[in-house]
Structure formats: C-alpha cells, structure tokens
C-alpha cells in the first residue's frame, strides 16, 4: 500500500449550482400576502407576521417597542397569565421582535398544535387591550434591564456608534432611555396599534406545513380588514460631519472599539461585491483583521467587519473588544489593513479561499426551513427578490483584484470613518 502523503490536500470540487427553495405567495382576499415554504423533517412550523411598525414610524420614542411587547400582555378575553400559559402548555414559543423598521411576531410550535395556535395569535394581535398594570410592570423591567445593558462596554459602544452615524434626530439614531420609557402611556400604544398594526402586515409560514395549515392561516388572517397604508413615510437627513467619540471607563480592562460609516441600502448595485471586500477585511476567521489582530498579535478574542442592513440605509461596522493598552495600536492596525486593501491586489490564493468559503457557507445557510424563510425576508423587505442571490453568487465568482481595490478606495476612505471607543487607552 502506498504511504499516505499527509502534506498534500485531497482534491476538491466546487458547487456548480445552488437550489434555494423559494416561498410561494398567496394574496388573500383582503390583500394581505401569505408567503409559505414547506420543508424539513421535524413536525414543527413557524408562523411570522411582519408589520410596518418599527421605530421608524413612531411619533413618540418607545411607541413601537412597547406596542410590540405589550401584545402578549392582554387581550379583550385573556390576561397576561392566560396568554403565557396558553403558549407554554403547547410547548410553543412566542417571540416578539420590535425593530427599527419592522415589528415581527413569531410563533414556533409543533405543527399539530397549529389549529389552536393560529387563531390565538390572531386575537393577540388584533384584540390587544394594553392593560395599564402590565404596562407599568413592563416599563419597570425595561428600565432595570437597560441599566444592566448600559453597563456593558460593547452594548454602549454599539449604541453610541449608531447615534454617531445617524444623529439624535434620526429614527435610526435614537435609543430607549429611562425618561423616554417613563413618558410612554397606554394611549400612545393604542394609537400606534391602530395606525401601524391593524391591517398592515405580511405573513410568512415555514416548516413542515401542508395544505391544511396554509388554508388555516389564510382563512384566519384573510378576513381582517387590511389597509396597507404607509404611515409616516418621512425623510431624514444624516449628519454631515464624521464624528469620533471616546467614553473613558477607568475600571475597564478592555476597550470596545467601533469604526464605520453609513454606506448604502441592500438595493445598491455595489452591495453584493462590497460584501466580498468586507469578508476579506473582517468577515470570517481567516480574515485579515482576525489574522493580524487576534492570531498574530493576540490583542483580542475577536474582531469583525460587517454590514448592518436597515431598510432605508445600511452601515459598515468594524468592531472589537481589545486589551485596553492596545486600543490605539488596534485602530492603527485597522487603518493599515484598509490601506493595504486599497493599494495592493489581494493574492490570488487568498481570493480563491474567500470565494470558496463564501459559496460554501451560503450553501450551508439554506438547509433548514426557517433559514429558507429568512433568505426570503432578507430580500423581500429590502426591495429585492431571489434574483439578488444569483447576483450575489455571480459577484463572488466574478470579482477580481482590481474590483476589490476600487471598491475599497470608493467606500473605505479612512478619514470618512466614524469612530467610537468605550473604555480608554
């Protein structure tokens, strides 16, 4: 038998094509759209309702957050206790995610329980009662939790960073604060519920679902009067000057560092290609920032560069928690790595690795029914469709060294980056 040569890597193949199972979409009688995808072996399903009810649409800060969270705190027929008991007894999980752009309400459960879960979700959302007592408790819990969160350098840095980018008058730049929370009244929630939740939503059903579940969801939500009117479609201006902020914390062992800028929403034609530039810079374990600042210097446990995609805007964030005495050195190294990207072609071998890695992780990101639903959401609500993924995969295959230099020069000018440090140096 020939000796095994362990120094030589086995041959490998790359994938030729990707099959993304797409959602089907049904327009219900009231013009509400139901998107569904049947996939998976486990007898479980997920029903998600998405409302144009993020903080973007608020008249008063906190309206969106509290309206969303209060949906599980009481309806005309069930009180808070009855609601939580209902989900818990079926082993179902209710998730309410109030975001900057949208409010998402999700129930996860065994498919066999959907005949009782689905109508219940309807009453939660449309017959909400916003009881004062529960609102007071929730406000207090939120304030206490905020105190704990704000004690974390990484949380504080990310919040400050977003405010730095968007300014305090932009809905993307505002964060909940104690005074804002105290100011919220149940009337504010009723108003917001009326304007942005009732009759203004889309549905996504995923998991092991048959005709019966699809019909059930269609019938349950298809007879509500839906308006689909867009509320508060405003325009906001971004701050013009790039800012830099440092919050000193003498007792901190590490600094949380954030660098970045507002770039573009996902629709931008440069977006898919720019993702590859970011991957090389700080998107994966073998990225330049990770290799330099963690694997060569040991300054940090991790450093990452990524895009945060909001519906109206998208921003770049480079973030790390580093040993305090290396704060300045780390920022210099980040600048240095950007400079190299802007001026030196990426070695062919590295580019090949990044491309294959991105193709491989894309493939493994479409293997569960819920991830298929996510893949739909992250294009559909951003004004895109499944063609985006074909463009993305084509960008990965076709991008060349010159493209990377040009994109880095266009979008990563060092003096255009905002910077936030919480900790010190």
């Amino acid at each position: 038998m020939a000796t095994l040569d362990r120094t030589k890597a086995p041959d490998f193949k790359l994938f030729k094509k990707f099959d993304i199972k797409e959602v089907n979409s049904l327009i219900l009688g009231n013009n509400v759209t139901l998107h569904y995808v049947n996939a998976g072996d486990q007898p479980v399903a997920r029903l998600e309702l998405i409302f144009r009810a993020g903080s973007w649409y608020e008249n008063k800060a906190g309206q969106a957050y509290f309206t969303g969270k209060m949906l599980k705190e009481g309806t005309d027929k069930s009180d808070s206790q009855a609601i939580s008991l209902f989900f818990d007894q079926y082993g179902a999980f209710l998730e309410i995610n109030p975001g900057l752009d949208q409010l998402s309400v999700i129930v996860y459960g065994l498919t066999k329980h959907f005949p009782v879960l689905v109508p219940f979700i309807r009453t939660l959302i449309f017959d909400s009662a916003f009881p004062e007592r529960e609102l007071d408790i929730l406000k207090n819990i939120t304030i206490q939790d905020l105190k704990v969160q704000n004690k974390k350098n990484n949380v504080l840095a990310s919040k400050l960073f977003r405010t730095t980018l968007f300014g305090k008058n932009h809905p993307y730049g505002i964060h909940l604060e104690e005074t804002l929370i105290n100011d919220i009244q149940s009337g504010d929630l009723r108003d917001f519920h009326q304007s942005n939740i009732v009759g203004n939503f889309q549905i996504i059903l995923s998991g092991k679902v048959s005709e019966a579940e699809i019909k059930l969801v269609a019938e349950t939500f298809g007879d509500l009067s839906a308006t689909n009117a867009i509320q508060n479609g405003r325009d906001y201006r971004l701050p013009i000057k790039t800012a830099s902020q440092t919050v000193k914390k003498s007792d901190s062992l590490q600094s949380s560092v954030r660098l970045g800028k507002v770039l573009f929403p996902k629709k931008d034609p440069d977006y898919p290609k720019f993702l590859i530039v970011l991957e090389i810079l700080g998107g994966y374990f073998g990225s330049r920032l990770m290799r330099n600042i963690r694997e060569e210097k040991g300054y940090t446990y991790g450093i990452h560069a990524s895009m945060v995609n909001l519906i109206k805007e998208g921003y770049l964030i480079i973030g790390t928690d580093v040993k305090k005495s290396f704060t300045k050195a780390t920022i210099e190294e980040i600048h240095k790595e950007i400079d190299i990207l802007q001026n030196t072609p990426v070695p062919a071998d590295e580019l090949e690795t990044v491309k294959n890695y991105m193709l491989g992780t894309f493939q493994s990101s479409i293997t569960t029914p819920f991830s298929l639903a996510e893949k739909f959401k992250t294009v559909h609500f951003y004004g895109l469709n499944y063609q985006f993924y074909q463009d993305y995969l084509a960008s990965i295959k076709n991008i060349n060294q010159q493209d990377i230099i040009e994109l880095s020069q266009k979008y990563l000018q060092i003096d255009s980056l905002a910077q936030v440090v919480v900790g010190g140096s």
Partner: protein
Amino acid sequence: MISYQNFKLSNGLNVYVIENPDTPVAVVNILYNVGSKDEQEDKTGFAHLFEHLMFGGSINIPNYDEPLQKVGGENNAFTSTDITNYYLTIPANNLETAFWLESDRMLSLSFDPRVLEVQRKVVIEEFKQRYLNQPYGDVWLKLRPLAYQKHPYKWAPIGKDISHIENATLEDVRSFFFKFYRPNNATMVVAGNVKTDEVKKLSEKWFDPIPAGEAYKRDLVKEPKQLAPRHLNLTADVPLNAIYKVYHMPEKLSSGYYQADLVGDMLGRGNSSRFYRQLIKERKLFNKLNTYITGSVDPGLLVISGMLNNNVSLETADAALQEVIDEFKSEAIEQSELLKVKNQAESTLQFSEMELLNQALNLAFAANLGDAELVNKESQKIQSVTVEEVKSMASKVLVPENCSTIHYHSQN
C-alpha cells in the same frame, strides 16, 4: 428519532454515521473525552486553552482553517466541564478534506511555541471579555467553588485564575495532547449527504494509522453531600442587586436528572411559571428570574438566578423565593402543570434536531456517555416522569442545606 450506523477502528476510534440525502452538506463532529474536570487543580483552564491550540497547525499541515475555507467549509469548537468538541460543516463532496485535516491534528500537533504565546494572550482576552469586563460576569467563578468543595466542577472551563494560563508550558501542552487526544478517547460523528461505506473507507485511510494511546481512566473525587447552607456576599459596581441560588442535583445518567430538570422548569421556565407569576408579576420583587440546570455528566446544579428591582432588599427577595419553593413542595401539583413543562421540553428537543449539527453533537455526546441509543431515549425519559417523582425530587433537592447562595450587592 435519529438513525445511525456505527463502527470502530482498530485504534479504538468510535465512528457514527447519520445518512441524510436531503442536504448538500456534511457535518463532522469530533468529541474528545476531556473537559475542565480532567485538569489538575493547579493547571486549570487547560482543556480550553488546548482547544485554541488545536487550530494552530498540525504536524503535516501548517494551518487548519485555511484549507478548510478553501473547499467551502467552516468550523468551530467548544470546551465544557465534561468534553471538548470540534465540529465543521463542509460541502458533502469535499468530505475528504475534513478527514485529512482532522486526522492530522489527531496524529500530532505542530507544538509551535509561537502559537502557544499568541493563544495564551487570546484566551486571556477571552477571560476578560466574558468574565471580568461584564457586569456580574465573575459570578460563576465564585459560585462553582462555593457549591463544589472537592469535585473539579469547582472551577469553570475558562480556569480558576488567569495565572494558570499565563504559566502553561509547551511541555504541559505536549503531555496533555498525548494523554487525551488519542483515537481511543474520541468519538466521531459524520452526518449529512454521506454513505456509511464511504465514511468507513475514509476513516480507515486517514484515522486508522493513528496509534492508540493509553486508555484514560477517569477517577474523579466525588463531591461529598452538602450538609449546611452556604452563603457568600459580593459587592461590585453593578446596577442592580442580584441573587444566585444553586442546588446539587442528580447526575446525567440517573432517572433523577430529568425529574430535577422538570422541577426547575415548573418553578421558573417561561412566563407562566411560578416564579415569574408570583415574584415578577404579582409581588414585583424581581425584573428577571431564570431557572435552569447546568446539565453536566457528574452531579450538577439546579440554578435559580434573579435580578432585583430597585428598593428591594436581598433578604426580602431571598425569602420570597423560599416561599414559592415551600409552597411548591407542600401543595398538590396538578397533572396539567407537569404536562406543560414536558411539552416545553419535548418541543425544544424537536426544534434542536432540525439542525444536522445538533443531531451529530447529541449523538456524539450520548455515545461518549457509553450508550449512543440514549440520543433517542431522551424524549421517553422526559415523558415518563410522574407527579410523585417531581414532588419527591423537589423535597430532596430544594432544601436549604443543599443550597449555595450568592447575594450580589450593587455598590451604587
């Protein structure tokens, strides 16, 4: 229900295969039967530091990550008190690359001193990021030695003290590797779009030539029964007072394990639980309360942790927890309450098995415990728990002399 095939190589490597033709990917999970409980008390944090070193190059391959990324794969690892686990996802047609990489680092590491120097620093930053630079981050560093006086669960996987990581030598690394990272001390699960025959062929080609090591006989000191309540006060610059109560509970392989788990769920899982209803909603003493178990192989802990509302004293909060516990122990428990927590546990299991990686990990974990079939018995074990068993477990576990308490005072 997970169906699998199993074979063993001549060097003792135990291999399991889950065939799933519906996915384009393959998953390889290698579990080494070594956790922080196998460390010496003066060299803690070593199993975890070692996990980092496993990515620093092996005897024939200078870099682990790069060749894997080149074929579209991704990977990670974790260290617990009981095991060290490495896992990767790869396009199924490139499976052999995973075998090449994993077998070489099981054969031998490069033992490059520079790798040790850098990873030592990285781990120290991880220590700070997770345990020291977070409000309440150090609580488990204090809880473990309070609850465990003898058993090595008394230190956390990150280690007892940063100095242990600072002082690790290359000689320590080498001897640790050849003691624990041997094929006969590992379990491999290959799952996804793979065939058992193919996995067998690849295993024989890449793993069979690795020599077996001396069998590792685990002989850990047993934790003596706790006889009196233990209490510790901590004060730090944290925004709220917090309370932590931990109770010793049965080991993973006993029937009592699931009973204790369900006791914890009835007290504190979800917003319909007793704690949430009575102490957050009705009496408004806490703003957050969690109940969970550490889930360890040897006898673990049932944990209650809570954040207090402003102006609530730790004594009041502690007494209120005790009242709910006493009521739970003394009153009749309805079947419906037990059914509720069983349903929660059952659906958690179903959701977790949606991920191929979780299937592979759960199977490896069960096999490492000595019976792979346990992976398919968990649901049945949960369902078979009775109200009487829950009651008797509660009265055994939830007693003050079995409890260690930390009152975490806000200095503000």
